[in-house]
């Protein structure tokens, strides 16, 4: 979330699309209701199903699963053709005026530079036109009139001009009037003092075009001037309680903690590595905040290797593993399936249930030598080897994997911090011991590490240095406390830290906790486990444990509750809530303003505090341009979004580029051999399926909770009345749903809430599949729904395509 939960109450229009906030985030959804009650805000819901969010909406429109870009692209087209954009904002705060390489092209569904063999783009033509100014700096060329045919604005206009209301309706199945009605509602928020917020979730991410779904909305929000505003923003309503925090800790291959991109084989040394990651400003006077990258990285190295990290050994740069390719969860299971992996640990993760194509995941796990499952509960994954009838048809005697199952404490038995979707880090306290011999996750990892370290110390082995030198300053080495760890994450001075403006002034004495990431240094004098969390445990103590919920502004900022990263800032890009001169676009919802001497107000300014408006420092400080990107060259599958059909589509061609079979599906999405072959075709599997959560359950977790089992005891699928009639299925019948990868059986819920859509002239039915059942739990046993889903992910994030695929259905 660029904003935060409570801020939703400041919106004039709330759009719920690509998510179902009422069901997946009911307590956050409260702020939608508050906006409706107190601000007379309107709620619009666009979803393949009439969800419980739709039940309390002012306007609902159905959409075909997997056609969101067509819908949103249509909105962009509407805003541009009807001139419903926030002109000053677009002109100054976005790269609308930036001139793009004239060789950049978009033809027949593909952007310039496509390589069909590699299924990827060479992005050479996707850049800005550059010019060298006096003094030797090189800056991007701009046309403030936005008239140059190569400026991002004109390219944007041209690109989305194809997304006419008729095309939108044809591709999405949304009735044209409904689409236009929603466009009108959205367009109203182009006014500087009106904001729209978007609440999306996995309904946008779990597609082969997931990232571009979100980018399309980001373009809309930028055109409307809703970024940085109270009641605006792009709000990803994230999954688990600490999914934000674990993402921030970057428990994945590509990044080190704090989104520090991890070294690859190409980063042969620290210097090369840093140079590639420390950008130069693309426009004059921009803050270009990533220029501080070396400070963040060096401080992380000091946190990890302590005294063993010195300038002599590049702070232990060599000890960091270099990546040679993708290691996302789909890539990992692909490798495992190929027999390239021996050991695997699942820490509070149930991949058999939550990763696509259960058969493939199960087969992959059976190729491991050892599997370790650390969890408070009996997971399906931990029993992947056990026969559970047709729910899990395996032969244990043929599975050689040694499986360890370790009992972990749950939240109630643990002290530490969680980071919510609004980036607020909050501390929680242990209430009781876990059952039996269960242990905390930290203790389990630490004890395991201490055993390994002892073995390497005693027997030696491959590269023991990073293991033996790993900084481990904990009072109980097998049981580091959460407090010790959060202090390490937040950052401390190893030597005295001086004020850069006055080299004699000590701003942090050696051994002190740092006040924030601004105090980090690249000379080894500071350590910080995660720069974006810098300052969350300062000399003032544990700021994440603060519990003052006062809200003097009435905007719900509560700056003294917990600690929001970065720097306790609650609304990111909040400089954009003011015009060029520093006056708020909407004085009634002032987030910050220029006081004449400094930026101040109801939030921590997302700007250098003393950057006077006439210095022309633009609000999007994390980009070298200083502005938001309408044209985004960083994306893997195009600087603009484009509608591509899901990998399993009811259509045989992409209506936007009917003559190019290469542009049917996302051309830059990665597909493994064997997976492409098991994609189903519409002639065998004619119905669009989508998987989702119900409000009564949480993933595969609450099936172990009796209270939740009572609320939704048995697996079901939802179909519309028309399909039910066609198939002779009555409400409450048992049905079998098949994809090309397997089947599930469930009770049929026949409902008016699933509309039959007309797509490209053809009637198209949707089958809705809630995910929460499995073979372990106190609910009635059920099938793992990911038996059905295709093994393909988004081109950028590799998030699997759970939301749009094909199935057939029959009475069981």
């Amino acid at each position, binding site marked *: 979330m660029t904003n935060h939960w409570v801020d939703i109450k400041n919106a004039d229009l709330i759009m719920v699309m690509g998510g179902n906030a*009422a*069901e997946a985030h009911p307590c956050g*959804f409260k702020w939608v209701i508050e906006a409706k*009650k107190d601000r007379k805000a309107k709620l619009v819901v666009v979803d393949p199903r009439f969800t419980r969010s739709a039940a309390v909406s002012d306007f609902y429109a159905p959409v075909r699963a997997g056609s969101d870009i067509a819908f949103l692209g249509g909105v962009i087209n509407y805003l541009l053709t009807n001139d419903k954009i926030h002109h000053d904002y677009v002109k100054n705060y976005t790269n609308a005026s930036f001139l793009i390489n004239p060789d950049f092209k978009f033809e027949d569904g593909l952007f310039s530079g496509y390589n069909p063999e590699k299924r990827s783009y060479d992005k050479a033509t996707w850049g800005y036109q550059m010019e060298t100014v006096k003094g030797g700096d090189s800056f991007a060329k701009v046309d403030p009139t936005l008239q140059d045919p190569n400026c991002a604005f004109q390219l944007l206009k041209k690109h989305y001009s194809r997304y006419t209301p008729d095309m939108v309706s044809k591709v999405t199945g949304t009735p044209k009037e409904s689409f236009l009605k929603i466009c009108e509602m959205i367009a109203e928020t182009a006014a500087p003092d009106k904001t729209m917020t978007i609440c999306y979730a996995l309904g946008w991410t779990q597609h082969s075009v997931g990232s571009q779904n979100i980018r399309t909305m980001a373009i809309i929000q930028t055109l409307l001037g809703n970024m940085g505003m109270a009641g605006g923003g792009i709000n990803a309503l994230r999954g688990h309680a600490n999914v934000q925090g674990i993402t921030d800790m970057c428990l994945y291959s590509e990044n080190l903690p704090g989104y520090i991109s991890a070294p690859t084989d190409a980063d042969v040394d620290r210097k090369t590595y840093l140079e590639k990651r420390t950008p130069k400003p693309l426009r004059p006077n921009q803050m270009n905040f990533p220029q501080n990258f070396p400070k963040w990285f060096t401080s992380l190295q000091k946190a990890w290797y302590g005294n063993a990290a010195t300038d002599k050994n590049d702070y232990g740069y060599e000890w960091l593993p270099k990546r040679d390719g993708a290691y996302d969860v789909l890539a990992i299971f692909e490798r495992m399936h190929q027999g390239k992996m021996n050991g695997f640990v699942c820490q509070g993760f149930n991949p058999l249930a939550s990763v696509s194509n259960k058969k493939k995941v199960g087969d992959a796990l059976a190729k491991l030598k050892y599997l370790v499952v650390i969890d408070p509960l009996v997971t399906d994954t931990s029993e992947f080897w056990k026969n559970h009838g047709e729910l899990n048809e395996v032969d244990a005697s043929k599975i050689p994997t040694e499986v360890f199952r370790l009992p972990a404490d749950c939240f109630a038995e643990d002290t530490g911090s969680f980071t919510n979707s609004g980036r607020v880090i909050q501390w929680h306290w242990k209430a009781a011991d876990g059952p039996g011999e269960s242990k905390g996750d930290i203790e389990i990892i630490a004890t395991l590490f201490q055993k390994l370290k002892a073995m390497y110390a005693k027997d030696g082995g491959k590269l023991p240095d990073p293991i033996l030198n790993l900084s481990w300053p904990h009072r109980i080495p097998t049981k580091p406390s959460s407090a010790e760890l959060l202090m390490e994450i937040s950052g401390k001075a190893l030597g005295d830290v001086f004020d850069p403006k006055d080299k004699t002034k000590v701003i942090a004495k050696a051994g002190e906790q740092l006040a924030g990431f601004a105090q980090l240094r690249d000379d080894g004098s500071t350590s910080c486990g995660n720069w974006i969390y810098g300052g969350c445990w300062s000399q003032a103590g544990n700021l994440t444990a603060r519990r003052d919920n006062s809200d003097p502004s009435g905007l719900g900022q509560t700056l003294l509750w917990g600690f929001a990263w970065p720097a306790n800032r609650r609304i990111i890009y909040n400089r954009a809530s003011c015009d060029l001169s520093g006056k708020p676009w909407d004085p009634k919802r002032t987030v910050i303003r220029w006081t004449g001497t400094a930026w101040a107000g109801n939030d921590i300014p997302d700007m250098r505090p003393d950057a006077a408006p006439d210095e022309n420092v633009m609000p999007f400080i994390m980009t070298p341009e200083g502005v938001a990107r309408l044209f985004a060259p960083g994306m893997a599958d195009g600087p603009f979004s484009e509608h591509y059909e899901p990998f399993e589509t009811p259509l045989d061609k992409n209506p936007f580029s009917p003559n190019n079979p290469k542009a049917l599906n996302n051309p830059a999405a990665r597909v493994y051999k064997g997976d492409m072959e098991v994609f189903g075709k519409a002639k065998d599997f004619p119905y669009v399926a989508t998987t989702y959560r119900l409000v009564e359950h949480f993933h595969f977790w609450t099936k172990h909770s009796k209270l939740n089992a009572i609320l939704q005891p048995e697996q079901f699928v939802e179909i519309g009345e028309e399909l039910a009639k066609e198939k002779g299925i009555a409400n409450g019948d048992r049905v079998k749903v098949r994809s090309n990868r397997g089947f599930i059986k469930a009770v049929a819920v026949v409902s008016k809430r699933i509309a039959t859509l007309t797509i490209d002239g053809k009637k198209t039915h949707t089958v809705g599949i809630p995910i929460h059942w499995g073979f372990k739990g106190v609910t009635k046993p059920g099938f793992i729904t990911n038996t059905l889903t295709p093994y393909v992910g988004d081109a950028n994030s590799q998030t699997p395509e759970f939301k749009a695929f094909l199935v057939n259905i029959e009475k069981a």
Partner: protein
Amino acid sequence: MALQSLDIARRSATTTPAPGVRQTTEVAKLIDVSTCIGCKACQVACMEWNDIRDEVGSCTGVYDNPVDLSAKSWTVMRFAEVEEKGKLEWLIRKDGCMHCADPGCLKACPAPGAIIQYANGIVDFHQENCIGCGYCVTGCPFNIPRISKEDSKAYKCSLCSDRVAVGQAPACAKACPTGAIQFGSKEQMKDYAGKRVADLKSRGYDKAGLYDPPGVGGTHVMYVLHHADRPELYKGLPNDPGISPLVSLWKGIAKPVATVAMAAVALGSLFHYVMKGPNEVSKELEDEMEKEDAK
């Protein structure tokens, strides 16, 4: 609220009035159906707080689970898919005890102290006094009380009288994530409902209104409905509910009339005896028989 809520207004099967000098605040729960997302947090909070767990049932083709109120489900959500003016509406109503000002259950209950109405408006069942006859079920115009199969006692929502007694809101109201359930004094709730109704009218629901049925003297659980003119759309919420005339007859006039009638017959017999004396066999016949025997 606080401890005054223990003041008793009425007690089942009790003919004399309860102490009624103190005036305490009437409380109420307002269920704003227009902001209810049917998440069932109220159901869980209710079960969790009251230490009850219903059976793990099955899916019957609807979202309603448990499918009905039971001794272990004191509140359930009822889902209705309704098409109004060509627009689909998913009306979701939290069902449970309405805490009537004139409670039919209490009226019907034969067991003294099994049903109590507190001065704050809460109607509470006291299972230790309940004899399990099920008369409360017949008395209720909303079909709420359920007799447990395990202990044959009647159960229903207590409006968390234990929480209200210490100044807290009922568990369901506290939990409700969207604020569709509000709790406060009845006065406050009516004011709040007024605002909600005005908002709904501004959004095109001309017939929005408050459901506080006068037929049962008003209730301490009220609804804000988008279609207040047709409460039956909400899975059969009764339009103009009242205690069944049969129950009123049975537990009303019938009680004194029949008691008096029975007493009259008994006393009539007594006085008949006193006034007319016994009907003895006549002396002539006695003599006749004695003569016969003497033969």
